[in-house]
């Protein structure tokens, strides 16, 4: 046991400056700060994200789950008050393995822009990042835009949704990289690993990269649309500093029926994989039936952003205490 903080005092001061800068930018852009509960009777059904569940002490409340992002509650606010941009900085919780960039509780900045699409939200995000780099007295990094679909096509000769697991495996073997056998029949996972190994890892260390035009199969909670080349793509993007994933932005899906069927799909996958069942957020579905304004939303990892700004190599360097001594 070690009672000492893992973050240096300098890192704590940088964290305070970052939060101050984020709040100031949001305020100057007329985005309203909101607060939503961390505990909910519903959970995130996404099979890739594991919600933490409160133990038997919560019996008086009924089962309660810690939020993995404030997304569902913030969308309910948007459905109720559809004319206002909103943001929240929240500590979120995930039952996750610890790593250089992972911890069970971390800080997330999430904001929604009414009337914007994913492209406008990318410009919005650039403006925020520019403000932050300025506040930290750092030279503004070069920005680059990459298309997920085009990158995959250039490397393999296939559009992502036409790829076969065996083609991906052969590509790994030909490049002398390790390919997990368990992956071949899971195309979504194949794509995740392929993109991480051959595309994201090649992003220049001193660049900010916006990766957009995801294949429709990876739409998650984003709308699908047609890009400039006439291909059907998911209207979402991710932001990377070097190869570090910082943020995930979506042109938000507003259709309650599609949302319900995606939740049900998640529940089925969880059942097949023997994962813990998670209760679907019926409140969100009801709110979506009422109507979500056309909007774009983004979630950004504040701790990772701080790692990038301060040149820290481990997430523990920017957290007062980590999973080991919290």
């Amino acid at each position, binding site marked *: 046991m070690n009672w000492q903080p893992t973050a240096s005092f300098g890192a704590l001061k940088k964290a305070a400056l970052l939060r101050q800068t984020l709040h100031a930018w949001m305020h100057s852009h007329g985005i309203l700060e909101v607060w939503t509960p961390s505990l909910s009777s519903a959970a995130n059904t996404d099979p890739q994200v594991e919600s933490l569940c409160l133990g038997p002490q919560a019996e008086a409340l009924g089962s309660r789950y810690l939020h993995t992002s404030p997304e569902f509650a913030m969308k309910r606010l948007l459905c109720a008050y559809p004319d206002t941009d909103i943001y929240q900085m929240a500590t979120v919780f995930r039952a996750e393995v610890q*790593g250089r960039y992972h911890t069970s509780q971390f800080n997330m900045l999430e904001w929604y822009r009414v009337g914007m699409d994913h492209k406008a939200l990318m410009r919005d995000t650039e403006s925020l990042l520019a403000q932050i780099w300025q506040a930290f007295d750092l030279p503004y990094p070069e920005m680059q835009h990459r298309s997920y679909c085009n990158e995959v096509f250039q490397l393999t000769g296939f559009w992502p949704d036409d790829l076969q697991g065996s083609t991906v495996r052969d590509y790994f073997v030909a490049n002398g*990289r390790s390919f*997990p056998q368990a*992956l071949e029949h899971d195309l979504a*996972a194949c794509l995740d690993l392929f993109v991480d190994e051959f595309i994201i890892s090649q992003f220049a260390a001193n660049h900010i990269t916006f990766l957009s035009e995801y294949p429709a199969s990876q739409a998650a909670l984003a709308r699908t649309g047609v890009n400039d080349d006439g291909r059907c793509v998911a209207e979402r993007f991710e932001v990377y500093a070097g190869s570090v994933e910082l943020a995930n932005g979506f042109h938000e899906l507003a259709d309650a029926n599609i949302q319900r069927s995606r939740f049900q799909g998640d529940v089925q996958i969880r059942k097949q994989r023997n994962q813990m069942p998670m209760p679907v957020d019926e409140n969100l579905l009801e709110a979506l039936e009422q109507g979500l304004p056309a909007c774009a939303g983004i979630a950004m990892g504040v701790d990772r952003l701080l790692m990038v700004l301060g040149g820290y190599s481990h997430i523990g360097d920017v957290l007062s205490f980590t999973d080991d001594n919290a």
Partner: protein
Amino acid sequence: MANYGTNEFKGGLKIMLDGDPHSIVSNEFVKPGKGQAFARTRVRNLKTGRVVERTFKSGESVESADVMDTSMQYLYSDGEQWHFMNPETFEQLAADKTAVGEAYLWLMDEAMCEVTLYNGQPLAVTPPNFVEMAIKETDPGLRGDTATGGTKPAYMETGAMVKVPLFIEEGEKIKIDTRNGEYVSRVK
């Protein structure tokens, strides 16, 4: 035989891969915010010493390797095999050239070594981090020359060659770091 899940991976864990025992050198957890999680590891093949990268899908499990490190005392070599003894049970084991590898350069009577056993057989031998050895042969020392920083080769009884400062004399005892084969200090 026990199995390990990817969430149990950590440096030093011994696992079976492609029929050979491996030791995990490092493990990085990779997880896109909206995607599949992976464990990207570097593993050392304990038979060949080769380090390779291996990626596992999160949740995969691998068989544990029946590998253990034991502290054993070096006894002697008959030229083909090196003999070690467990100082507690007095059990003796012989390791061949493959298992001993380069470690023979630092094996001296009664040195306590780390012997890695796989299915009870010696797989690898790690000498103590520091050993003290007398110099068998080196060029005559330059008395008083402690400042120029020059070195010269010195040969040990075991055949090891260590670069030593110019002032070191034949017959002197020196301390050596076996991890990089470098001279550390004189032993008075």
